[in-house]
């Protein structure tokens, strides 16, 4: 990767789901150290973007490219993307009864750290790390023993996503509506978690419907996605403008 190349570079990305075109030519550059917010009305393709970047099945890329740290991201399997440092915080984290959170996290941390050539922590060290991550997002460590997301409330699931992110220390964190359905306290916990990850070597892309998260995690750039295209980009002020005017005035541009 050349020094000038951004960490993530999306060019004219077009994506279909069930034969329906959802993304109709996305261009986006995210440099290391930056935080970007992607906003937009429901059905604009926000979640599709996160899903495609993480490698979810059922999304057909019909055009364009995604470069990530000098590689063709779309050529990698989901687990390879994760090992290369891509992390998607799910909008709807999956419940997996029968796999304990601890067992899952351990397998995940081992896979990723082994790939990075780091030594894996002992069981005791790992437990310590996991507990610390729980404490950071205000999640009872008893959750580590429970099935993955099993019976967690909406807010607990979101905090569990964030806890994983803190443990896995991704290069590129994609947050898919991590703020939705959270009360103000939980929102602050999420914001503190994201802020703690801000680092010159790391990038964050937050997909959100509301600007309120952006009061706590101040983005470098804000993009508005509507009708499968980025219709406007700007600074922090754009989010405030959206808050005031809604999305209607921009959707005409998308048509």
């Amino acid at each position, binding site marked *: 990767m050349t020094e000038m190349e951004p960490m993530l570079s999306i060019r004219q990305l077009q994506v279909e789901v069930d034969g329906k075109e959802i993304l109709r030519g996305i261009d986006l550059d995210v440099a290391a150290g930056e935080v970007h917010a992607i906003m937009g009305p429901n059905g604009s393709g926000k979640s599709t973007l996160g899903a495609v970047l993480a*490698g979810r099945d059922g999304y057909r890329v019909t055009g364009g490219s995604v470069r990530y740290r000098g590689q063709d991201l779309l050529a990698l399997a989901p687990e390879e993307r994760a090992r290369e440092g891509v992390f998607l915080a799910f909008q709807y984290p*999956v419940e*997996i009864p029968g796999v304990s959170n601890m067992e899952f996290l351990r397998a995940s941390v081992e*896979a*990723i750290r082994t790939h990075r050539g780091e030594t894996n922590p002992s069981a005791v060290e790992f437990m310590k790390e996991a507990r610390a991550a729980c404490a950071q997002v205000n999640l009872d460590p008893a959750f580590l023993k429970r099935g993955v997301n099993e019976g967690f409330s909406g807010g607990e699931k979101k905090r569990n996503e964030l806890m994983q992110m803190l443990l896995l220390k991704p290069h590129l964190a994609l947050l898919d509506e991590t703020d939705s359905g959270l009360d103000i306290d939980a929102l602050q916990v999420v914001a503190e978690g994201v802020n703690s990850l801000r680092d010159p070597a790391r990038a964050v892309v937050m997909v959100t419907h509301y600007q309120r998260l952006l009061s706590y995690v101040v983005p470098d750039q804000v993009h508005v996605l509507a009708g499968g295209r980025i219709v406007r980009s700007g600074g922090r002020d754009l989010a405030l403008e959206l808050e005031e005017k809604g999305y209607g005035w921009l959707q005409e541009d998308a048509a």
Partner: protein
Amino acid sequence: MSLDDRIDSFTRAARARADAVAAASDALSALRAAGRDAFLAQGLPARGNESWKYSRLGPLLEDGLLDRPRDGLPAVAGQAFEGLDSATVSIVDGLPQAFPEAPEGVTLTRLRDVAADPSVAERLGTLCAATERPFVALNGALTEDGVFIQVARDARVELPLELVFAQAEDAAPRGAHPRVLLVLEPGARLTLLERQVGARNVFTNSVLEVFVGEGAQLDHLRLALDAGAGRWLTALDVQVDAGARYGLHQALVGAAFRRNEVRVHLAAPGALAEVGGATLTRDRTHLDTQMSLEHAAPHCTSDQRFRAIAGERSRTVLNGRIHIHPHAQKTAAEFNTRNLLLSAEAEIDAKPELEIYADDVKCAHGATVGQLDPEGLFYLRSRGIDEVSARTMLSFAFLASIVEQFPLEPLRDGVRAELERAFSRPAADAPAGVAS
């Protein structure tokens, strides 16, 4: 030898054995005489017997499987469960061993000493009748002993009672026909841990009759975690009286032959049965579970949940019959089974079977045979876990979700570890003791 010839040969040998056993005169003589008559009248299950459609008799008909066990050999050891405290009753090759000190409120006796006592005789063989059940009849004909367990009225027994059907350290084929009668008097509470232990070529044909008295509560864990050459056949009949609760929690793996016939009779209003099962078959093993819920009274509830995984060339059979009698109004009955095939050559035959003769009931059933949840798979992979490991984790989780509901906490980790070992070991090259 053709199957018919083998059946003839088995039946002749069974008759000879029955005659030899009948010569012993003890309190079980009446049961044996009735068993012998019933067996000779029925013979073995004929082709076309629906209940035996998926379980071939072959593995039970091999030479020597009717031979009497030799006395005095030590038992093979079962896996130990760390942190589990229990009083253990061992039945080795069908014969009960010295009893432990019984927990308070529990009486343990050898069946052949008490079978003729009126309080025992009025129950023995009544719940699990020998008619239309050839192997129950055979058990009756050949049984030499068993255990009578009684839990006193209102006794709340904290210490789990472990009932181990074990095999002796002996390479010779043989047959064992133990019999157990368990009576919980009204208001009693007990946790029973039943285990089938051993992988040797022994035909263990056991019959358990269980009476859960009014307001009593029984949690019955049933573990059979040894694959291998064992031929295990059990008939378990449970009567649940008014306001009583019966919980059956099973973790089973396939063997050369394993079949559990379970009939639960909800006999009076307010009776409740909760049944859970996690089963795993691999290689060429066989596991057949025949569940039958008899809703014979109004206002009773039954809930059954099964999860099965079949790999390699194994076969899993689950028949879930719910029979709601004409007067059993306000019944709530649910049967749910989810099944996972890991190989194109494995087979799962899962069949809910409803017979409903009352009109005011809530009855639900579901059976799925399927693949892993793609959402769960993506979730694990998105965290860096490779696809093969993710599939293994999810498959195993499918079973573990049942084990996590087991009542004895120290047991859960142990059972989980055993199942995980059975699940993740490589496939066996050789068939599991099944003569082809």
